[in-house]
């Protein structure tokens, strides 16, 4: 079946270091979405990428969608303690609203 793989599972960084999480789908996606979930919280929408090769930025966060629309990445520059949480990618395979989530990357930031 359709799968979305996400690595790494955990990432521990010192405050100020950069962070990247990678997402790969077994099949071509119609779009990919990124969510952040704080400990004990629920997923909060960050961004959606639709076009092949698309790059979007939100302050220190940079999101990329691969040319083949099968992979994506989230890069955070100069992490802060407020960035702590689990980052999920979620792919849509053009099957209505169904999202296939990756396993998530848990980010911890040491001050």
């Amino acid at each position, binding site marked *: 079946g359709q799968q979305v793989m*996400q690595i790494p599972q955990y990432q521990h960084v010192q405050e100020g270091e950069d962070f990247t999480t990678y997402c790969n789908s077994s099949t071509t996606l119609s779009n990919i979405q990124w969510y952040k979930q704080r400990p004990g919280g629920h997923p909060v*929408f960050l961004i959606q990428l639709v076009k092949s090769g698309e790059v979007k930025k939100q302050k220190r966060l940079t999101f990329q969608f691969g040319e083949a629309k099968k992979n994506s990445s989230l890069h955070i520059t100069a992490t802060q303690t407020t960035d702590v949480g689990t980052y999920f990618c979620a792919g849509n395979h053009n099957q209505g*609203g*169904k999202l296939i989530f990756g396993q*998530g990357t848990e980010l911890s930031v040491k001050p």
Partner: protein
Amino acid sequence: GAGVSQSPRYKVAKRGQDVALRCDPISGHVSLFWYQQALGQGPEFLTYFQNEAQLDKSGLPSDRFFAERPEGSVSTLKIQRTQQEDSAVYLCASSLERLAGEDTQYFGPGTRLTVL
């Protein structure tokens, strides 16, 4: 404005009991989704409604799981004869547009179900 709300927030059930989980989507949102999130995992799709129509229930793990949205707003996820493997957080999400796959899904706080 109010976001997606879910009740109860926590539910403890004895194995074999039936449970009903409620989701109140954002007012006016056409699409509603249920996901199951096990500890340390990403949410897994269960089912999806567009208004009152259940368009996809491919993720429901067994026939013990049943979801409805009779008036196109509030939805209920029912689990019959609960088993320990049903223990998880059940998340509800809603989105505004018909083309739900291309629109933001807003998640509720979830219901944490523990089956003893």
